């Protein structure tokens, strides 16, 4: 008989693992990715692939040469997920070299400088995206013309590029304009927003990053993640709920200047952010109560930035700001301890 193995209890383990969760999120993103192929064609495939490959390569290289091979998390799916999420946040006609810079900032600055997996304060994909937004504002807000599915439309080619009005920029202009109806009338219908059809509309509202256009695909992804218990409902529902309620209030007060709350929650990066970016494990609070507070604050910040800030889309910045508050929330919001409930027969 060989040696007996000894260890401390527990001696059993569930089937969960880091890989299962990370690859599970990637699978949840597949409907949105497929929708993006439908709408943006080859461009979205090239952007996403470049982003994933760049992120995985940078993580491998930093771990090997700077960390001295301390952690081998390259294959656990987290770098690939960051890459995919970064790609989903970019327009499909972004030049390759900009994508690579974004990946470097996302993985290098957003994740590895803090110590690697589990140590970062800010969502790496959002760090990458916001750096690109601030450094390359023109390329990041230039959308491809609709219909060019089999071509990778690099935005530096002026013939193929188009700085178009997104639904969000229309809503923003409507708030401060004297003729708000002119803008609000141009908004796509709710069904179009849900399915993303506005991308292919002839009026060249081919506007939106790869992942954000088809809200329905994102919601399918959310259902998948809830079913597999990868995330819980608290963060996405609190974000979307807050935005819905507040924008609903504003719509009730002044329907002329403000878009309807359904249109608001289906436009821009709200769905993508609420479902995939804000729910990132590392940067969101650990308790459900904390996640609700986190979600409500993100919702409020998003509306503030969208309506009164300089940028049409406030989701990324709102999430990054609340990421900074997560440790504070973790410190003060504790789960209900057993035994705190008063006795009742």
């Amino acid at each position, binding site marked *: 008989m060989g*040696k*007996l*193995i*000894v*260890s*401390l209890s527990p001696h059993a383990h569930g089937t969960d693992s880091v890989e299962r969760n990370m690859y599970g999120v990637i699978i949840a993103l597949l409907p949105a990715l497929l929708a993006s192929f439908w709408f943006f064609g080859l461009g979205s495939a090239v952007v996403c692939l470049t982003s994933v490959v760049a992120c995985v390569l940078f993580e491998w290289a930093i771990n090997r040469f700077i960390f001295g091979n301390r952690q081998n998390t390259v294959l656990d799916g987290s770098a690939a997920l960051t890459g995919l999420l970064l790609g989903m946040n970019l327009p499909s006609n972004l030049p390759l070299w900009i994508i690579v810079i974004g990946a470097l900032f996302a993985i290098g600055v957003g994740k590895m400088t803090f110590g690697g997996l589990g140590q970062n304060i800010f969502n790496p994909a959002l760090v990458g995206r916001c750096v690109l937004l601030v450094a390359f504002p023109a390329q990041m807000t230039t959308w491809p013309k609709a219909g060019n599915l089999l071509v990778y439309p690099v935005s530096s080619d002026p013939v193929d590029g188009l700085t178009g009005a997104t639904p969000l920029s229309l809503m923003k202009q409507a708030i401060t304009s004297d003729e708000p109806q002119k803008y609000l009338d141009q908004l796509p219908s709710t069904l179009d927003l849900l399915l993303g059809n506005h991308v292919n509309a002839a009026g060249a509202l081919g506007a939106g990053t790869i992942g954000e256009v088809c809200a329905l695909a994102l919601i399918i992804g959310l259902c998948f993640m809830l079913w597999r218990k990868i995330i819980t409902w608290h963060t996405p529902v609190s974000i979307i709920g807050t935005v819905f309620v507040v924008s609903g209030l504003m719509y009730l007060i002044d329907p002329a200047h403000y878009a309807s709350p359904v249109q608001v929650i289906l436009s821009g990066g709200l769905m993508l952010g609420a479902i995939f970016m804000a729910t990132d494990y590392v940067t969101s609070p650990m308790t459900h109560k904390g996640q609700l507070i986190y979600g409500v604050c993100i919702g409020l910040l998003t509306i503030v930035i969208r309506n009164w800030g300089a940028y049409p889309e406030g989701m990324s910045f709102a999430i990054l700001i609340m990421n900074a508050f997560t440790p504070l929330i973790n410190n003060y919001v504790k789960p209900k301890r057993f035994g705190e409930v008063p006795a009742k027969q």
Partner: protein
Amino acid sequence: MDFILTAVIVLGGIGLIAAIVLFVCSKKFAVYEDPRIGQVNELLPGANCGGCGFAGCGGMADALVKGADSGSIDGLNCPVGGSEVMGQVADLLGMAIANSDPMVAVVRCNGSCTLRPKVNEYSGLRTCAAMNACGAGETACGFGCLGCGDCVEACEFDAIHINPESGLPEVDEDKCTACGACSKTCPRHIIELRKKGPKNRRVFVSCVNKDKGAVAMKACKAACIGCGKCAKECKFEAITVEGNVAYIDFNKCRLCKKCVEACPTGAIHAVNFPASKPAAPTEPTEPTKAKEETA
């Protein structure tokens, strides 16, 4: 020109007001500290290791000054600075100190991988504390070193390291300051602070196994079996055998090494002696092997 003048006056005024406020605060809220505390603190090594029993050198300085005021600084010793530093501090405070012998950490286990075979495989968090809670460890000796290196983690002077061949920790005499951190961390109380000895020579029983002799030998070939031969040999009554294990009192030991020769298992170690005999105590010697065969 006007605006430059205005800017200079405004900023200069703010600076002046801030300086006055800070000066007033520093006077009004000043805490009086005995200047001797600062002076003593300068003399102390500044490692904040806790070897003196206080959290940091500041705490020790405080205690020394208080002790000086109350008449004696006996019982206060900085193991890192040693008698040199304590002498300087005593001079500064105008006190006398008792001479204390330098101490060193001693690992009292010789159950290396060759002498103490593994009977189980441990799977899990590799710290001595965890393995100790799990059972006897990977060997049959429930008192011996677990080899996971909690002592190495605890040492702030880089003075103790696990030898990868033997699996046991080894103390670097020159770096060890006898602060006691490793001794406190070891869950089996194997590491003891003992006198460094004249010319750094010392004799100790390298085993803490309290099982009966036969059981202890089955677990480890270099175990102390509590036979008592060493105690009989010792003319200075320095050795006591209690709970099937021998212990040498370092205050009474005269380093004559008669016990080392008497020990049938080679459990007693003599460190830093000139190699007059080939009997190096880390492996069982020829005579001992013969004894085992006839037993």
